[in-house]
């Protein structure tokens, strides 16, 4: 399959049942394309971190297999893991190490010979260069997050996992983080991020996977997803307020604002007929005049909420 040829990461039939009996993942299959930003979106406890942990070798899968750039993560774990950089959700660091020591350690751990010039470049890009001799314990939360990214990038990985990269990060830092992720993508790194912030996925991702209770319920191009599942709302500002919607227009299921001055019609963009033309005609027939109209598209958040509702 062509899609498989492009895949840098291929997850097939992965299940995970913890010793407690909790089934965190149920036969998850997923292909990640080379060079894309993929957002794995799901509520807390949906299995996002478990999936990442299995791919990275931190958790053993109960069944199924994963191939990273053609390498099986069990049989050929060295090649597979050398390809991956992982930024964990928790800010786990060796408090008493220096910034420079810890990124050098990470690079060595992943089997790369020393390369101070490259590490300097990474630290500069993450605005950590002037902190290179500081002990990690003296860094702020945002710096520690960036340090974890620097550690993950220290061995020049092709795939970068960001597990909840902006959890507990303030608005400005979030913007910076998004900027950073985009610049990483520009260098050819494939990025897989998990998030439960929908706007993050909407802002960043090329494709979105939605995971819920251990199952991937949808994988789609973001734009396609927005188009397919997106609903549009058309709001009409009336010239004279209405007391109630005339029965002739009941079939359109419109909402009338409390002051009677606005009519809102919701329609599906994926439908063959949006019903707009018919509506406008019927409005005309009913002698309802409007002075203005505007349309809005539902956000990914609306889509996400309705998706989770539908499958419940």
């Amino acid at each position, binding site marked *: 399959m062509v899609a498989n040829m492009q895949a840098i990461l291929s997850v097939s039939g992965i299940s995970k049942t*913890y010793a407690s009996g909790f089934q965190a993942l149920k036969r998850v299959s997923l292909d990640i394309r080379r060079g894309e930003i993929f957002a794995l979106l799901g509520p807390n406890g949906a299995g996002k971190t478990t999936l990442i942990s299995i791919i990275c070798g931190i958790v053993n899968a109960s069944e199924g297999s994963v191939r990273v750039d053609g390498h099986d993560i069990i049989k050929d774990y060295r090649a597979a893991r050398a390809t991956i950089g992982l930024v964990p959700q928790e800010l786990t660091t060796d408090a008493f190490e220096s910034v420079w020591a810890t990124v050098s350690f990470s690079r060595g751990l*992943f089997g790369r010979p020393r390369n101070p010039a490259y590490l300097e470049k990474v630290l500069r890009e993450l605005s950590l260069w002037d902190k290179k001799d500081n002990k990690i314990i003296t860094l702020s939360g945002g710096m520690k997050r960036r340090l974890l990214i620097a550690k993950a990038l220290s061995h020049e990985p092709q795939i970068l996992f960001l597990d909840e990269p902006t959890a507990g990060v303030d608005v400005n830092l979030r913007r910076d983080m998004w900027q950073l992720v985009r610049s990483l993508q520009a260098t050819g790194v494939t990025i897989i991020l998990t998030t439960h912030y929908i706007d993050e996925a909407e802002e960043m991702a090329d494709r979105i996977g939605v995971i819920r209770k251990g199952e991937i319920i949808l994988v789609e191009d973001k734009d396609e997803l927005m188009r397919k599942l997106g609903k549009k709302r058309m709001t009409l500002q009336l010239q004279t307020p209405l007391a109630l919607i005339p029965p002739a227009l009941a079939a359109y299921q419109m909402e009338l604002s409390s002051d009677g001055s606005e009519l809102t019609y919701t329609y599906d963009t994926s439908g063959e007929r949006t019903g707009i033309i018919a509506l406008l005609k019927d409005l005309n027939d009913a002698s309802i005049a409007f002075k203005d109209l505007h349309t809005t598209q539902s956000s990914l958040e609306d889509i996400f909420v309705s998706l989770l509702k539908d499958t419940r």
Partner: protein
Amino acid sequence: MNLHAMRAIYLFEMARTRRTLLQSIVSPVISTSLYFVVFGAAIGARIAEVDGISYGAFIVPGLIMLSLLTQSVSNASFGIYFPKFTGTIYELLSAPVSYLEIAASYVGAAATKSIVLGLIILATAGLFVPLQVAHPWWMILFLVLTAVTFSLFGFIIGIWADNFEKLQLVPLLIITPLTFLGGSFYSIDILPPVWQTITLFNPVVYLVSGFRWSFYGIADVAVGISLAMTLLFLAVFLAIVAWIFKTGYRLKN
């Protein structure tokens, strides 16, 4: 072989040692000196020679063993327990390193530290009592083998422990008593016959005896048996480590 990784882990652990120099090196040296003052000078003066060696000199190999065993275990156990505790173990588990490489690096670093410590204590002892080492190569062999074996043991404890109390438990409740009762401060000849037999179940007896033989050519048990027992412990701990890594015990869910 991921030699870069082994080097990185080894250097990381040695850097940790340098940061905790006071606790790692100075405190064992001070406590050893105290033993010499109390047992060697104060009490030792009233004890006749043991097997023709002054009491102060007699206890040197045992004292080194005492530090070697406790330090190897606590070093190695702490080295692997701490990443588990802070969560930084994620990096180790996701790295392209084999378990053998991980174990070898941590154990290697812990053993290096204990060997250095053992040599420092030996030098310190030289200030208090006249020393002789009859079989230097054997001395080094026992020193290295014991350091490696018990660092391996410490590594196992570090993986097994899921809190700080368990981490202290084995060194405190098993290693220290066994070392004190293992002939560090006496020749087992002076025990009543029943206790002499019971003592033979104490693994530390073989380590101390072999080590002391390398100094003075006297031993409670034949040196070949001492060496064989040391190698046996090494093999047992290696087997346990192999099992831990095969099953991911306490490391992976």
